[in-house]
C-alpha cells in the first residue's frame, strides 16, 4: 500500500533544510505510520536529493510525524539550480513510499 492512500503531507523550506510533515487520516493507522515511516527509510527514498541527516519528530497529538532533511535543497531556494528550489514536490514524493 502506498502512503498516499492513508496519509497526507506538506513540505517546507528554510535555507538548505527541508521539512516534511505527514499525518494519517485515521488515527488507528498512526502506530503503523510510526513503525513503517522511519527516518532511515525516508533517507533511502530521497537518495541523492539529501546530503545531510534526516531527523524524525513524533507528533502523537495530531497523529503525525515531522521529518527534517538537512542539506536537502541543493544549497537552498535562492542558491540551487534545481527545477523545484523549494522542494514543494517532496510532499508528493514521500507519499509514494510503500507502507
Amino acid at each position, binding site marked *: 500500500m502506498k502512503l498516499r492512500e492513508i496519509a497526507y503531507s506538506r513540505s517546507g523550506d528554510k535555507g538548505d533544510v527541508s521539512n516534511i510533515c505527514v499525518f494519517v487520516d485515521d488515527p488507528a493507522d498512526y502506530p503503523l505510520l510510526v513503525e513503517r515511516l522511519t527516518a532511515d527509510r525516508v533517507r533511502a527514498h530521497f537518495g541523492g536529493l539529501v546530503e545531510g541527516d534526516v531527523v524524525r519528530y513524533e507528533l502523537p497529538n495530531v497523529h503525525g510525524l*515531522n521529518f527534517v532533511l538537512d542539506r536537502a535543497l541543493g544549497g537552498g531556494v535562492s542558491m540551487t539550480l534545481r527545477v523545484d528550489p523549494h522542494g514543494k514536490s517532496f510532499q508528493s514524493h514521500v507519499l509514494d513510499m510503500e507502507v
Partner: protein
Amino acid sequence: MPRRASGGTLAIGSGSAYANDRLAPAAAMADSGRVSYIGFDCLAERTMALAHVRRRRNPASGQDERIRRLLPLLRGYLAAGGRVVGNFGAANPDAAAADFVEGLRALGLAGVRLGVIRGDDVLDLVLAQDAELPELGTTVAALGDRIVSANAYIGAEPIVDCLREDAQIVLGGRLADPSLFVGPICHELGWSLDDWEAVGHATLVGHLLECGVHSTGGNFEDPPYRVVPDPHRLGFPLAEVSEDSAVVTKLDGTGGAVDERTMKTQLYYEIHDPRTYLTPDVTADFSQVRVEDLGGDRVRLSGATGREWPATLKVLVGVDQGYRATGEISYGGPGCLERARRAEEILRAHLDELLDPGDHVRIDLQGMNSLFGDKEGTAYPEEVRLRLAVRTESEELARDAAHEVELLYFGPAGGGGVVTSVVPALGVTPAYVPRELVTLETEVVTS
C-alpha cells in the same frame, strides 16, 4: 498588575502570504467587518533577495510593489479605523512609507498615523562581526564585496511600540512573519512580551495566518484524496484569539476549507523541532498543540506554549552570485529520451568550452528525473523537456549558455519550444547576531 489581561478576544485576519499574492482576498477581508487587524506578510527568503536586486538597480525602490494598488481596496476599512501591520518595507521601509503616505493622501485619508520600523538592515554589523555563514561553511569577510545585504528578522516589540503610539498602519522591513500577528495580539489582549507561554500561543496564531491560503486549501489538494470546494477563489484565514485558544476560520462564501487536515499541514509547515521553533519573539513549543475541528470551517487550536526568546537574531545575508541562465527544449514521440540525451551531450560539449571551471551547470530531463532524480522502473515517457540551468559570474557567458539551448533547434530531430532566461543570481544565506547589538528605531508619521 497582571501580566496577562483576561477575558478579551481579538479577531485578526491575513491579508497576504508573499510579495506577489492576490489582492482580492485582502479586499474581501477588509470589507468583511470581521476583523480589526489585518497582517500582511509580503516576504520570503527569495523575495527579500529579489527586493535587494531591485534596490541595487534603483535606490528609491526595493519596497513591496503592490502598495499603490492595495490601498484603494482598503479605503473603507482604514476610514473605519481598521489597522494594518505588514513587512511592506522589504529592502526599503522608507520607500514603502512614502508610498503609503502618498497613496493615503490620494484617497483623501489625511491624518492616518503610520508607524515605520527601521533597523533590520544589519549589513554594517555582520561586516564588523565577520559573522559566520554556517550553510556556506565560511564567514562574511571571506566573501568580500559579494556580500550585498543583511537583514535581521525583527520581532513584535517595535510593532507594539508603534501601536501604543496609536499607529493605525505599522510597516517595516524584515519583520518576522508570525510577529506581524504577535504584535497586535499581545497589544490588544494586554499580554506582556516576556510572558513566554502567551507569546508562544500568539506565535502559533501568527504561524497559521502568515501563509494566507496555506491554511484554507492552498498547496493542499491531491484528488481524489484531498479536494476542497472552489479552489479558484480560496479565502484568506482569520483567527479569533483568546487567552487559552484560537479559532481559525475563513470568510463565508469564499472557496477552500478550514478543517483538521488544512490546519495540521500548516501547523508544522517549515517547523523543525516542534518543541523549539525559534522566532525573534520566543522559543515556541508546538509539540502539544491540540487541533479540534468544530465544523463549518472552524478549527480550535490550543496547547501552544513557549520559552525565553533566543539570544541571537537570525539574519538573511544576501550574496551576489553572478547570473543564472536557464533554457528548455522539448522532445516527443518514439526515441524522445535518446534524442534528449544526445542533446545533453551536445550541450555539455559546448558548455565545457564556453564556461569557466568554477561555473555551475545542471541538466535535467523533465518528465524523467528533474524532481526526484533517476529512478529504476520509470516508464518510457511520451515526451521529455530538457532543462539547462547555469550559474556563472559573467552575464555574457550566462547569455551564451542560454543561447546554446536555442541552437539545439539544429541538434537532434524534433526539438521544439525553446524558452530561455538570464537573471541576476542573488543568494540568501542565514547568519546569527547577538540581539542586543541590533538597534531598532520607530517613527510615527502622519498622512
